[in-house]
């Protein structure tokens, strides 16, 4: 049994672009569960439920939960255990980078709860995350260090021992999900690369951290 663990960002961009039906079709093709943690649910359902502008979107995500397309992490891991692991990981991640004077708190509980679930569930899994910081921190910490040094005009130190605890996570974005859906002919639109490109740009404009160059490369691979 595999798990695909969803951070808030992909659910937000897929919802805003009316692409949630694709997620339903992908679920049928997936040999495992689509998971959301309580912390992510709070961001994509509970909080927007009280904002008129996003209430409809929140209802649509909740509908996927009701249909069992997205399953709550408590199905496999108790919430208390997940929270404990999330806090432990937050402590590590938020002390990997520091300036001369203080540690930099980079992340919050939603995204880290996805890492915690990935670590605890012990099956084959990947995290679907659109925002760049977590991915950069784990896949290419030097890039994140360079970016922050350039922006903050100060030297950033990396605690490599702490970073060592963060190996082994796999990340994809909503753009890769759409690529898979395209390859499996799960998209209602006519199967051509122009349509794929348009969908990838739609995700980009609703927050997926993907460059035009990467979109071009995905289009070429499709």
């Amino acid at each position, binding site marked *: 049994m595999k798990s695909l663990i969803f951070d808030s960002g992909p659910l937000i961009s897929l919802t805003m672009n009316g692409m949630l039906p694709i997620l339903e079709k992908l679920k049928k093709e997936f040999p495992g569960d689509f998971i959301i943690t309580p912390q992510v649910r709070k961001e994509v359902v509970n909080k927007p439920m009280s904002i008129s502008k996003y209430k409809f979107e929140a209802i649509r995500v909740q509908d996927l939960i009701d249909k069992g397309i997205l399953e709550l992490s408590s199905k496999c891991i108790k919430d208390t255990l997940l929270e404990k692991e999330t806090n432990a990981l937050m402590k590590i991640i938020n002390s990997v980078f520091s300036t001369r004077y203080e540690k930099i708190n980079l*992340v919050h509980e939603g995204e880290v709860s996805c890492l915690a679930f990935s670590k605890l569930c012990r099956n084959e899994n990947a995290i679907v995350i659109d925002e760049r910081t977590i991915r950069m921190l784990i896949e290419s910490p030097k890039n994140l260090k360079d970016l922050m040094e350039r922006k*903050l005009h100060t030297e950033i130190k990396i605690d490599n021992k702490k970073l060592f605890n963060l190996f082994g996570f796999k990340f994809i974005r909503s753009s890769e999900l759409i690529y898979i859906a395209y390859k499996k002919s799960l998209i209602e639109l006519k199967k051509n690369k122009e349509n794929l490109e348009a969908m990838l740009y739609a995700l980009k404009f609703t927050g997926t951290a993907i*460059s035009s160059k990467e979109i071009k490369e995905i289009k070429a691979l499709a």
Partner: protein
Amino acid sequence: MKEEENVLRILKEAKKAINENNPSEIKKLSDQTIHTATISQDSDNIIVAVLVYSLAKIVEREHYREMPGWNKFYSEFLKNWDLAISHLEKKELEEYRDDVGKIRNAMNKISSNLGEYISDVFRKAKINKAFKIYEHGLSEEKTAHLLGISLWDLAGYIGQSTISEAKVNESLPVKKRIKIAEEIFG
């Protein structure tokens, strides 16, 4: 409060720019607390960034001055701005924070359309400053939480920017990430 002197300087220079009717200078000042806001995540610095940016937007929109409620709002805004400067100079932090709270609350007292417009300016200023902090490397959720805004608002704003075009963001080659996706679905 972190970098008190810097906050004080920004408040003073913003006041000078208001008197000179120079919104672009005020906007520049609003970004000068972002470094501290990113590193120390000090709420005083974050609030000043939002307030100063909002002020720039309000000053920029000259038609607001013709609307009912403007005079009362603006005079209270400026009065509390001066008080905030004076209290910060004397290192009276509690009083300073109270003044800042009053500046933020001044908009709630306007019952006309102007109140809605100014509330919207503050809301958008928060999103703008969240984006600036995100640009400096904090995660999207962390940033949204610091500014008290919705991830849904921030995601849209980030998407409209060119931030994801930077080569430095590409932490894994496209082919490798596609391979991960294919393997997990395989």
